[in-house]
């Protein structure tokens, strides 16, 4: 079977738009991106099977039927996407409740490195925090050994 060009273009556009939305920092846009890609994948799966008449035994000759398996897989994928969409919406809403926005934050490691760079320090895991004086630590046995 040769692929139908219209389907191929639809898949391409859905994937392209979805990926560029995924690269956004707002969770709502990411969510729309995920939904778009999800639909793109569904069309992709649909293209994998034979096209034809409804696959109902008795009504139609078996030779001309469409392949029912991709349709069953797409149904499963749609259900999964639905659940995930609901969860992501809840996540975005909770983030808005807590922070007033739903942007994806920097991860903890990045934040730490940026802070160290601002203070012009080298990263050193065993160093004390400057704003936390810790006399016990400074005279603790084993400190030199660790260095």
């Amino acid at each position: 079977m040769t692929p139908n060009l219209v389907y191929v273009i639809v898949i391409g556009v859905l994937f392209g738009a979805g990926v560029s939305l995924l690269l956004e920092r707002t969770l709502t846009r990411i969510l729309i991106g995920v939904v778009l890609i999800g639909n793109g994948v569904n069309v992709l799966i649909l293209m994998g099977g034979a096209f034809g008449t409804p696959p109902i035994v008795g009504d139609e000759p078996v030779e001309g039927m469409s392949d029912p398996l991709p349709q069953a897989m797409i149904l499963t994928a749609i259900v999964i996407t639905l659940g995930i969409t609901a969860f992501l919406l809840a996540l975005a809403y909770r983030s808005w409740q807590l922070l007033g926005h739903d942007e994806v934050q920097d991860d903890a490691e990045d934040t730490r490195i940026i802070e160290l760079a601002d203070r012009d320090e080298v990263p050193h895991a065993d160093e004390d925090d400057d704003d936390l004086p810790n006399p016990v630590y400074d005279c603790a046995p084993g400190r030199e050994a660790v260095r």
Partner: protein
Amino acid sequence: MTSLVPLPVVIPLLGAALTLMLARRPVAQRAISLTALTATLAVSSVLLVLTVTDGPQVVAVGGWAPPLGIVLIADKLAALMLVVSTAVTLCVLVYSIGQGAADGDEETPLSIYHPTYLALTAGVTNAFLSGDLFNLYVGFEVLLVASYVLLTLGSTENRIRAGTTYVVVSLLSSVIFLSALGLVYAATGTLNMAQLAGRFDELPDNLRLLLQGMLLLAFGIKAAVFPLGAWLPDSYPTAPAPVTAVFAGLLTKVGIYAVIRTETLLFPDGRIADVLLVISLLTMVVGILGAVAQSDIKRLLSFTLISHIGYMLFGVALATEAGLSGAIFYIAHHITIQTTLFLAAGLIERRGGTTALDRLGGLGKIAPVLSILFFIPALNLAGIPPFSGFLGKLGLLQAGVDESGPLVWAVVAGGVVTSLLTLYAIGRVWNLAFWRRPHPQMPTAEDEADGSTVLLPRLMIAPTFALVAFSVALTVVAGPLFGITSDAAADLLSRTPYIEAVFPDGAP
């Protein structure tokens, strides 16, 4: 006896439904979860014995004969993974019950915890048992969606932040997996793995390489191999201790399991073995260098988790019987040990009030039992003889030395260096948290005396101890266990036991 095969999936799912209905009755919830997981463990153990004595156990779901219906297959690899993973989930469940009881969970029960936890177990067992690529995807989705909920439990600010990254990255890997499935079906007309094994051999090389790459990419993100694992150390440590422990033990290993299954069954030609070797070397070395730089026990353990995934990938890349056998043994060892260490980290957090290394100290004197519970798995992770970590690494490195080639030797050297650096990282935790004098801000025995909190509840110590004992038992039974893993590896390499179990009359 094949009717046993679906039970490890069905029992936790039933338990999840029941616990959801009994959301307002925490005692009943706990009883159901414990019963369900104990039953799953029992069934899995029987399955392991059956697969060792009688070969792979196959069941066609709903009576639809393959390749039309979905099959569930328990071969030696799947059954071994089932036993280890359910044993670990059971211990973590007891631990979380202990933690909930100690924190006065009675008034504000997190009623969603038990159903989600059981759904996670069902997803993991379904992924292990699946003989169909699409069902494998469904298993992954079940465990991932459950893990989204568990990771953002309580939805505090920190967990929402970490959860967002985790969810988005996991979604991306799921989408890649699903696209790969669509393409595989379009190219071969089936998703039954036993049938695919034959059909893939007929495909053009380039197409096969594309499909292999997409599947590896999807599984690689889930298994957190370099450079796809940066999400892991950021998200895991923010979750509650038992959740982190079960994630660390199981989720990445399901990814590695999927890699082993697809690489051996569907793509046995080993065309990208060199790429896998380089990735495994980088995963090991970069991961452990990350661990060395950490100042928080949970983050440090997350980086060792990534790093040691490299060992398993090394065994897969070798694709020899010894290599695969070592990798399977290492998975069993690593599931146990990484979970134990995260449970111990949870205990440290309770006793010391934090897992930040610069605010801890003197735990060795304050909490000697806890020190033992941390010390034994820590040495085990670093590969000190005679523990299973040493035996697993030895098996893998020996398998590597048997192969010739500078790249393999480079990975062997990297494995040794990683092992040493693990010892260094673990030794630093020991020095800072367990030796030196106690930090003044740590909770003291007086805090406990007023009755508001129990620092180290018995119900949390006991499961951690059980897992330490289990990990030591892995060392004691290492001989027979290596016997099973070599048989499993031989079955994987020859492929015929798996295919013949599904299609006794030959694949259509």
